[in-house]
């Protein structure tokens, strides 16, 4: 990683921690973008170079994680079918989370219950991610899967994974449990029968 890229990441992380501190002190609504930027010691303009809205800070590295999934789907692995490729992409995305990122998931879940704008942001991001993953799956397997097939398959796996994460978050469980549950969801959604014998 180059120096410039490292600096960029450090600023991004500083913005996320500043935001979390401030949300903890004053609640999500009581904090402005200008205040987050000030605490992270950068300009408001710099904030907006990293995040389009205050809600997006809570998504953390979601865009980078999605890119990992899209890259995985573009890769040609001999003998792989659409389900195999999608499972591989999902597992890479699930395992990518740094501990800070996973902790962010907990904060996002807790805050989203009282804040419709955070929920709206999460829903929009999820649909956008599903659209891109389905398009990537089709591009890779255009002779084997049509638009409806790709959309349904991606939606099934993503919904299963989100449902698992939400269930575990709602129960207040620890972070490794969340990743385990998400992996189990991929297993259930794609390989139900084979796994159950």
């Amino acid at each position, binding site marked *: 990683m180059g120096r410039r890229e490292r600096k960029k990441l450090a600023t991004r992380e500083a913005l996320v921690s500043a935001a979390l501190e401030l949300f903890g002190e004053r609640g999500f609504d009581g904090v402005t973008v200008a205040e987050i930027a000030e605490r992270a010691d950068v300009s408001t303009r710099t904030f907006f170079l990293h995040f389009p809205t205050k809600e997006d800070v809570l998504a953390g590295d979601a865009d980078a994680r999605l890119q990992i999934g899209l890259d995985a789907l573009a890769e040609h692995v001999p003998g792989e079918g659409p389900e195999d490729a999608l499972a591989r992409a999902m597992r890479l995305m699930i395992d990518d989370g740094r501990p800070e990122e996973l902790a962010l998931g907990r904060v996002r879940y807790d805050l989203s219950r009282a804040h419709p*704008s955070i929920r709206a942001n999460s*829903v*929009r991001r999820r649909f956008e991610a599903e659209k891109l993953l389905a398009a990537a799956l089709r591009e890779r397997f255009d002779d084997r899967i049509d638009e409806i097939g790709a959309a349904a398959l991606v*939606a099934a796996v993503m*919904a299963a994974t989100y449902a698992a994460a939400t*269930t575990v978050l709602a129960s207040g469980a620890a972070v490794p449990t969340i990743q385990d549950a998400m992996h189990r969801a991929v297993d*259930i959604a794609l390989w139900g*029968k084979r796994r159950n014998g």
Partner: protein
Amino acid sequence: MAEQPGRRERKRLATRQALIDAAVELFEAQGFDGTTVAQIAERADVTPRTFFLHFASKEDVLTGGAAARVELVLDVLSAPGPGEHMVDTLARAAHTMIDDLPEQEARLAWLRLRLAAQDQRFQASMFRGRGAAEARYAQALHRSFPEEVDELGATVSVAAVMEAMYAAGLVALRARETPEGVRAAMHRGVEIALRGLGGG
């Protein structure tokens, strides 16, 4: 004095249907924001007060019938056929729900889609309603198959089938398929999720 319950229920349903018809026509002609509850009531030839006996808001008309469909799905999930596999009960519930969609559902869904594209909060609240219904389906499925599936397994299976169904329907809806085409796509979405879950 009192009317027969059967007749009263029929009249109630007819009024409800008239309100949905009127709302769909007005939403299509003048947009969702440009339509008032008073206008919907007037076109359906009832008072605004009657409107509010049936629907809490304009938004509620757009998702109208959803509450009844949730009950229908719960009925299927709570009463599996003899020897029926968990996954097949789930699929039967989804197929039953698709077949029960009213004729205007494709038009209503199209209106919801357009509105959701303009209004993130509407999209989120719609999505939240779906999540709440799926949580109830998962509980019912787990209760019907306590040996076969734990709570997490039930939640995951329900989410996969329902969201695959909606995603497939959405592709067809965006392609401006006929109501029949949208329904066929939704059935296919269920089958795709079902294959993954190891049924079918």
